[in-house]
């Protein structure tokens, strides 16, 4: 009987074993692939992830723009069980209005955004309280460690991760990186245990700029200081290497903090005046008129004419500044004393058609194609109509509209022996493949190039001889003329002042003629006969009579600073 029971148990065990093995066979072999796939689906998860945005560096490697993680606070009102406790915590820790918090908590929604840019301390305090329904989120955001520095040049990145204005806007496609899939694995209990390296996701390219950190800083500092003394409406400083077109500094005032771009009420502040503001340059234009006339052999620096204080074009009289009469003067003296009638004389010797052709050669009717979003230029349609008066006034920089960057390009040609260069801000674009060993070589348009061709120097628009003659005339302006304040002992400095009246049209007033407002500027370079840098200082409506007392001292201080920092050897013993 006992043996029979044991036999039964044995049969039961065998049957149990067979069932278990059969079931295992069914699960693991027969339906194995199905359950394996099901398990994989539960263990793994995938999510799309944007590539990290590339960084932007000054020429010396200092970081101008990078990315970082930022915390934000949100609530899920449906999950909140203690609304009073949640309201108190949120309003006290995040320093928010209680009514606003209450409004958020009373919503019947699974997600209500509470605060952007929460600090580490705020997030930590909230986390410690462990209140159900309050969450701390994280997102990668653009950070500009230098604050307001070069803000209009760099632009900003909006909440949709789109670059706006400046370099961020221009290089959006190159900076943004490549989207990829992030693969994660969950362990027992659904805990996330690992992330594999994302497929195809790639960080965006880095930009190395031509901007010099120290010069940029000094330029902005000088503008801010001048604002206190001169109370100008806005100001711009551009410094370039005239031989290559590399922009060393591009400073504007007022500026903004790209980390907090949302706080700006006037959107105009985002515009870069160097490329987006058109103005009538005034007397700084005279050396260009002289260069064209000398190149065509119509005048020489020694050519004389007699100034009678006024020149009439049809019925319209053109006077000198302060209505002065200078008598017999050479063309060099015309620049030294900034005589309007002398510039008109040079233009008349040249002829309107040739003058127009030279203005085109100097690039005043086209964009410079600098790598900044939204560059504008004036077609100068009114000027091109062919009226003699327009050409006469354009000879001394009135009635013709240009941007500061166009003026810089034209003067670079005067300074460098006659070559028209392209002003540019990006020295190198470093792609991810560059880091992995492939030589770095793509230009500012994203095209592969060799580094040697990156300066984009084009043909001569005036001869080296003409260039040298105009440089001598401009040096004389600083040595003997109105530009004396630009003198730096030991160095020959070439330059020209300009004080232009602002037309009513430019102020959006439908009225002919000019207002009392002025644009005061100075363009100069040093050392004059082997220039290492060229600077334009432009101030809108400063509290000064002429550029000699406003833009010129700023030029002097910045030029002296660059000479000291770069340790440029002197031209002579002072």
């Amino acid at each position, binding site marked *: 009987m*006992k*043996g029979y029971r*044991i*036999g039964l*148990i*044995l049969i039961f*065990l065998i049957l149990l074993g067979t069932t278990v093995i059969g079931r295992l066979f069914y699960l693991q072999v027969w339906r194995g692939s199905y359950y394996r796939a099901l398990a994989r689906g539960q263990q793994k998860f995938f999510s799309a992830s944007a590539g990290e945005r590339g960084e932007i560096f000054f020429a010396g490697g200092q*970081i101008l723009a*990078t990315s*970082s*993680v930022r915390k934000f606070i949100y609530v899920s009102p449906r999950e909140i069980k203690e609304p009073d406790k949640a309201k108190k915590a949120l309003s006290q820790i995040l320093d928010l209005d209680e009514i606003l918090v209450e409004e958020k908590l009373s919503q019947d929604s699974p997600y209500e955004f509470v605060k952007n840019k929460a600090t*580490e301390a705020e997030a930590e305090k909230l986390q410690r309280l462990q209140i159900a329904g309050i969450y701390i989120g994280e997102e990668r955001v653009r*950070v500009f*460690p*230098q*604050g307001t*520095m070069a803000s209009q040049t760099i632009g900003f990145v909006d909440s949709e991760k789109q670059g706006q204005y400046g370099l961020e806007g221009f290089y959006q496609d190159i900076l943004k990186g490549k989207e990829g899939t992030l693969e994660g694995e969950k*362990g*027992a*209990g659904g*805990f*996330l*245990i*690992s992330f594999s390296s994302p497929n195809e996701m790639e960080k965006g390219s880095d930009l190395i700029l031509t901007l010099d*950190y*120290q010069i940029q*800083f000094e330029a902005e*500092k000088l503008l801010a200081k001048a604002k206190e003394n001169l109370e100008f409406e806005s100001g711009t400083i551009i410094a370039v290497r005239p031989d290559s077109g590399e922009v060393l500094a591009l400073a504007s005032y007022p500026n903004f903090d790209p980390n907090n771009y949302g706080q700006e009420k006037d959107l105009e502040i985002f515009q870069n005046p160097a490329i987006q503001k058109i103005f009538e340059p005034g007397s700084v234009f005279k050396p260009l008129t002289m260069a064209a006339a000398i190149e065509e052999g119509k005048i020489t620096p020694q050519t004389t004419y007699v100034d009678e204080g006024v020149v009439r074009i049809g019925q319209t009289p053109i006077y000198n500044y302060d209505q002065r009469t200078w008598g017999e003067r050479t063309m060099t003296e015309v620049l030294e004393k900034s005589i309007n009638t002398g510039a008109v004389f040079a233009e008349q010797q040249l002829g309107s058609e040739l003058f127009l052709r030279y203005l085109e050669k100097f690039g005043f009717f086209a964009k410079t194609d600098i790598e900044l979003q939204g560059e504008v230029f004036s077609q100068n349609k009114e000027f091109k109509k062919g009226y003699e008066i327009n050409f006469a006034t354009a000879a001394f920089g009135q009635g013709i509209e240009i941007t500061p960057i166009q003026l810089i390009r034209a003067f670079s040609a005067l300074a460098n022996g006659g070559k028209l260069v392209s002003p540019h801000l990006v020295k190198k674009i470093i792609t991810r493949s560059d880091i992995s060993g492939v030589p770095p070589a793509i230009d500012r348009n994203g095209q592969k190039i060799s580094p040697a061709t990156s300066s984009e120097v084009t043909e001569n628009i005036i001869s080296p001889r003409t260039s040298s003659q105009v440089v001598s005339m401009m040096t004389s302006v600083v040595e003997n003329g109105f530009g004396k304040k630009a003198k730096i002992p030991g160095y020959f400095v070439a330059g020209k002042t300009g004080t232009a009246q602002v037309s009513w049209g430019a102020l959006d007033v439908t009225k002919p003629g000019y207002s009392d407002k002025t644009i005061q500027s100075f363009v100069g370079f040093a050392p004059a006969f082997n220039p290492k840098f060229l600077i334009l200082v432009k101030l809108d409506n400063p509290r000064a009579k002429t550029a000699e007392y406003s833009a010129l001292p700023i030029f002097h201080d910045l030029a002296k600073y660059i000479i000291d920092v770069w340790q440029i050897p002197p031209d002579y013993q002072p």
Partner: protein
Amino acid sequence: MNTLTFPLSFPRISLKISAGMILSVGLAAIVLMIFAWLWQNNQVVAQTYQFQHLQNRSTNLKKENERLEINGLKENTLFNLEKQVQSLNLEKVEMVSFIQSPGTTVVTR
């Protein structure tokens, strides 16, 4: 030699011992397997927790490092450095007047 012939002839002694043993061993194996499974599960959960904890720490340290780097960048900007230098009340070299020596030659007695 014990042979298990099934289903009818059970050798009395050997069958008695063999069946009991099989039953005991079978049950022991099942219990052992249950314990092994529980232990293994416990290990996996514990290791997962530890792994997750370490991964969180690593992520937090990376974020902290990034935050400190950015703070360092902000602190070391020329703007901040200049502000700090100003607080040192240093004088520009050209503002300093030096004591003039009476002559260029020195005579010893």
